[in-house]
């Protein structure tokens, strides 16, 4: 996988600002926005690459989206890049969330505030589903083949969404089966 044919961040400042902008749009989670910004707006990566990087970010411990920022920043500018992306992702939103915490008590029982949060929560859920649907297009080139992708995806959805199995079982259990199969297919 090469990234040479894409746009890329021009400097550490660009990384910091880009990740700050990205993070500040992420109400109810940053992932949906990350796909939109990094793939569709900035063209720093394709959907296929996003899925590959996301697989690594997800399997490593720690917050996935923070891992993704680290990996991308590190890719372009080494350790300083990783720190710039991480700081962009966290610094300003951290200040905002602490300010909100300080005033939360006064508004937490206001019906309009509760309602707005309910509405935004429902939208946030839809945003995450939409990024899953968008990224599913990248599976067309999967070495696993489309039928097996559908089966694996279906089983993990049922296990996590409906049966509430711990994520780590699905990632490690079903994930290793999928990786072994991909390994066999890639030989040819």
């Amino acid at each position, binding site marked *: 996988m090469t990234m040479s044919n894409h746009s890329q961040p021009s400097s550490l400042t660009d990384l910091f600002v880009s990740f700050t902008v990205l*993070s500040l749009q*992420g*109400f*109810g*989670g940053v992932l*949906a926005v990350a796909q939109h910004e990094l793939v569709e707006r900035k063209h720093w990566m394709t959907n296929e690459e996003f899925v590959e990087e996301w*697989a690594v970010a*997800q399997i*490593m*411990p*720690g*917050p*996935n989206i*923070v*891992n993704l920022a*680290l*990996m991308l920043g*590190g890719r372009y500018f080494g*350790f300083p890049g990783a720190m710039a992306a991480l700081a962009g992702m*966290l610094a*300003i*939103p*951290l200040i905002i*969330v*602490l300010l909100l*915490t300080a005033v939360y008590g006064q508004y937490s029982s206001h*019906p309009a505030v509760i309602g*707005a*949060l309910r*509405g*935004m929560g*429902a*939208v946030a*859920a*839809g*945003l*995450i*589903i*939409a990024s*899953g649907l968008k990224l599913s297009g990248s*599976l067309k080139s*999967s*070495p*696993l083949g489309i039928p097996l992708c559908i089966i*694996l*995806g279906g089983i*993990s*959805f049922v296990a*996590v969404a409906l049966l509430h199995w711990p*994520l*780590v079982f*699905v990632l490690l259990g*079903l994930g290793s089966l*999928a*990786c*072994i*199969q*991909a*390994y066999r297919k*890639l030989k040819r």
Partner: protein
Amino acid sequence: MLVLFFSDWLSLFTHFLLLSLLAVGGAVTTAPEMHRYLVDQQHWLSDAQFSSSIAIAQAAPGPNILFVAVLGWNIGINAGGIAAALLGVLITMTGLLLPSTILSYLAAGWGHKNRDLRAVRAFKQGMGPIVISLLCATGWILASAHNDPARDWPLWLLTAFTAVIIWKTRIHVLWVLAAGAVLGCFGVV
């Protein structure tokens, strides 16, 4: 008022260092364990403070991991004020991020250097269908937190509508979020 000694801050820090390594699949997967430790075992936070910390972080922009900062903040407030609160933020955030950050950074660097290895390619491409389906599952779980069909069907409709419109059009996410806030504000959903 809560009194926290150096040893308490230290055990908070080491506990979060450990949780960092257990947080495979996202920091939010460790929230139940944080609740057990902070609320049930140490009594550093009330149940209501714990829930509202998560709610605030969900409502604010930025990664959901910031709920950890709010937990640290609230522990510090309970223990005496703004200075302690800032110390709490520093301790919980550093604790939760340090091990996973080092590990992920090293692993990603190794993976990128060896990206042409068959095993690395097999891992990245094999996990594809699973991580994509987990996104849909996360959205599903968030939506089904509202589980009274008679009352909550407009919310579900909003979730489904959002999923389709963001998937199929190029509209900016902030417009849809604002629409959700307005609909909620006026009690439509």
